[in-house]
């Protein structure tokens, strides 16, 4: 499974979600499918995308939050999994694209290449709903189940270590940040 295909497979569902992604390939690929104002790309601060997702989820329980994380990023903030589990935001789906490498800096293998199991780590941290998926069909089904379950779910999607040729896009960081904030503010005002 390629990560870009996985994101494409659930892209229609993302329209009604608030999405926080990590930097690099994930951000560039989601933008290549099509940027939306409800997508925020944390282009640095490795590890904190899941914490940002938690901050949004706790602040706005009426919104469905989706975090697109990666193995390298989640390994930098394993403690954050225990915080996610402790507060168990029902409106957060935590997808970890695990390509077993730090692709954007040369493909060096991460610890998931040598046996560390992020699904088991998430379950051990206390997250009740965890799953590993290896095919597009499995990913699509587990994402739909997570949406329907209305509960914190960590989906570890094993993906190929392939990505785009570059990571800088036309969307500036601050433009994305203010657009994303305004999107959530306008939703608030409509209620």
């Amino acid at each position, binding site marked *: 499974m390629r990560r870009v295909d996985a994101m494409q497979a659930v892209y229609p569902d993302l329209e009604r979600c608030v999405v926080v992604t990590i930097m690099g390939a994930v951000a560039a690929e989601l933008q290549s499918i099509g940027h939306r104002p409800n997508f925020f790309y944390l282009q*640095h*601060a490795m590890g*904190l*995308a899941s914490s*940002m997702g938690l*901050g*949004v989820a*706790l602040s706005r329980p009426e919104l469905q939050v989706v975090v697109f994380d990666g193995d390298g990023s989640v390994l930098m903030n394993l403690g*954050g999994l225990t915080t996610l589990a402790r507060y168990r935001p029902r409106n957060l789906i935590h997808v970890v694209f695990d390509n077993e490498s730090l692709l954007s800096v040369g493909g060096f293998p991460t610890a998931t290449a040598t046996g560390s199991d992020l699904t088991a780590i998430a379950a051990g941290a206390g997250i009740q709903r965890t799953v590993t998926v290896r095919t597009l069909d499995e990913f699509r089904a587990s994402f739909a189940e997570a949406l329907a379950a209305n509960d914190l779910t960590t989906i570890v999607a094993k993906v190929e270590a392939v990505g785009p040729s570059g990571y800088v896009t036309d969307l500036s960081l601050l433009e994305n940040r203010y657009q994303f*904030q305004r999107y959530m503010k306008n939703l608030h005002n409509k209620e």
Partner: protein
Amino acid sequence: MTLSQIRMPVSVSSSKLIYDCLKAAGVRIVSALPETWLVHLIRMAEDDAEMTLVRLAKEEEGVGISAGAHLAGVKSAMLMQNHGFLASVNGIVSCAQLYRIPLLMLISHRGEFGERDPWQTEGGGVTEHVLHALRIPYDRLDSEEHVGRRIAKAQTLAYSASKPVALLLCRDLMWEE
């Protein structure tokens, strides 16, 4: 021995004052990692139905949580020791500063004059230098008389400048000994 049985001369009145100022400033999410000087503040947040307390595994998570909360329209504050601030520097720079996130950091300033714990003595000496290096505006809270004004003014600047600010909770305010 439970936590409440350990006698620690942390000022309840100063903690209450700080907490009330955070409430008055509209703070509704507090992220925290326990440290001695923060025990009352954390308990007040926990006991307050209007406040969401997020207990962290590591302080840097709090930067992400505050960033998410801010973009979602909720005011927050971070409670941490100065060593927690030191552990959060990358998140402060590459999330909060890079993305112009107002961040209200309340940092217990261990390791200054009067510190008895040998393990706290390095952090106190570098905290203000690191704040300077990061160009983070900060002020010291060392007397109850200016707590209210300084918290309100710090938050005002955090929002007008869209950047992290810090308040150092000092020994003379927090420790009654």
